């Protein structure tokens, strides 16, 4: 079983998000970049599934040379080798197209992404790869088991869960609960330095989305405190002032 895990390099979850250049650029000054937490979950599940020589894991990232620290982290956690498509990840379509082109040359049984990246939250890459390769895709999976040449996944749907059985190859977006995130051990960190990291030049593709500007949510007014022994007052305010109940 060959598994491809698509990874993103994203700002650490504790980052305070600010912008520069008249709110057109994300301010990366002083920002720590990490492996996207959902991608880490996808990778962790892939490691469980291939344990004991049952398969291999390749990680792929569309990014410039500065993402290699994150790629090495994925190798340290347990991926066998890595591919970096040498381009700025313009948007989900660009990223999905590059990865799909790579898969056409190098087939995989299972293609895992995170359910979304925590910077642009698109949840699009798995579905776009699925469509580009004409294979099934499932978003937001909470369970994944493999039996021979098919996988059983549990995915979130409106008001419940759906269990699907899908033959290889397919693409899926990992969500919380799929696996416990693994922490690299010293041996992993040492071996990550020498694991293969192949750099591939991007394919030519037209993009269809541009980010023009950013804004942060409007600040709220001061909190209105209600005495702890006067809950009725809070209910009254929510009814008459805020009009939400």
């Amino acid at each position, binding site marked *: 079983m060959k598994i491809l895990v698509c990874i993103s390099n994203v700002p650490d979850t504790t980052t305070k*998000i600010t912008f520069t250049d008249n709110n057109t650029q994300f301010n990366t000054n002083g920002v720590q970049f990490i492996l996207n937490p959902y991608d880490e979950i996808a990778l962790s599940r892939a490691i469980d599934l291939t344990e004991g020589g049952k398969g291999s894991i390749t990680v792929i990232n569309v990014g410039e040379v500065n993402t290699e620290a994150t790629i090495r982290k994925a190798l340290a956690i347990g991926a066998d080798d890595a591919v970096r498509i040498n381009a700025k990840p313009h948007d989900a379509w660009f990223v999905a197209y590059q990865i799909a082109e790579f898969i056409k040359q190098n087939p995989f049984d299972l293609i895992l992404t995170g359910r979304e990246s925590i*910077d642009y939250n*698109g949840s*699009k890459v798995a579905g776009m790869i699925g469509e580009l390769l004409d294979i099934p895709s499932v978003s937001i999976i909470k369970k994944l088991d493999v039996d021979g040449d098919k996988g059983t996944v549990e995915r*979130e749907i409106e008001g419940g869960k759906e269990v699907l*059985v*899908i033959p290889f190859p397919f693409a899926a977006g990992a969500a919380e609960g799929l696996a416990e995130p693994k922490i690299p051990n010293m041996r992993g960190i040492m071996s990550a330095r020498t694991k293969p990291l192949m750099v591939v030049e991007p394919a030519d593709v037209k993009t269809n989305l541009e980010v*023009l500007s950013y804004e942060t949510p409007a600040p709220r007014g001061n909190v209105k405190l209600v005495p702890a022994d006067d809950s009725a007052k809070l209910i009254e305010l929510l009814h008459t002032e*805020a009009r939400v*109940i």
Partner: protein
Amino acid sequence: MPVLIYTENAAGKFKKSTFEAVSYARAIADQTNTSLTAISVGDVRADQLNLLGKYGADKVLNVSNDKLKSFVNQAYASVIAEAAKKESADIVVLSNSFSGRGLAPRIGVKLEAGVADGAVALPEISGDKFTVKKTAFSGKAFATVQLTSAKKVIALVPNSYKVVDKPAAGHVEDFSPEIKPTDFKALVKDIIQSTDKVSLPDAEIVVSGGRGLKGPENWGMIEELANLLGAATACSKPVSDADWRPHSEHVGQTGIAISPNLYIAIGISGAIQHLAGVSSSKVIVVINKDPEAPFFKVADYGIVGDAFEVVPKLIAAVKEYKGSA
């Protein structure tokens, strides 16, 4: 060039978020001086389909094929893209729901359309310039994106656009799309419905508990308060990490991002990752015994007090309010 809206159903019924998306799509159709066609897939009753006209659908394409009874991403995307082509629709709108997130990227690729997921406001259209405001950085910011393709797919975040009565013809006609066997490689083995509970992304009111509640055995009062308010229950990351509550209830940067009308946070200090997932709530109430809890800085209303004393009083107050209302 009508606008096409995919009207998602849950167990044969449309939810409020579907009607929000219909109203949103109607407004886009008005912006671009065109009509609105809805497409419904699955087993949906006529009285439900007729509701779509009430919110502005000029025409409703109804697909009821046995093979399409349960949701299969690949097949539904083919059906919706085929309808878009049949109608010559330039803009396809859907809900940014669990299934919408699976469909939007596939439809986008099929139609060679740019996809604006997580839309929170109507597009701004001037000449050839088409921009949409969407969520970014897990609720910490918004981005305005320009879709430069001829066709566009927009996925609207639930609770970000109001349902508006705007009666239109809503004429229902059957639509029989091509059924491609290769679209059905994924087999639905089981569907586990939990219909007794309000679904978290759609909920108008959410009652959420954190570590301050000390243990899973104390969630009874959270559920009681939620039931009284018709609210969904949620929790912070440490709570789901400790398995006090299921992961599906975790709201925050690495959980679900929500935008209810009212978010009540009980015993949650308000770490930046948690705030990211709930900051687009319209009204935030914080109950915490620590007056220095960072959550109070972004709250609209607050009670400084011990949850174990405050919540039972709040439950009594809600009961009294419900009794008198």
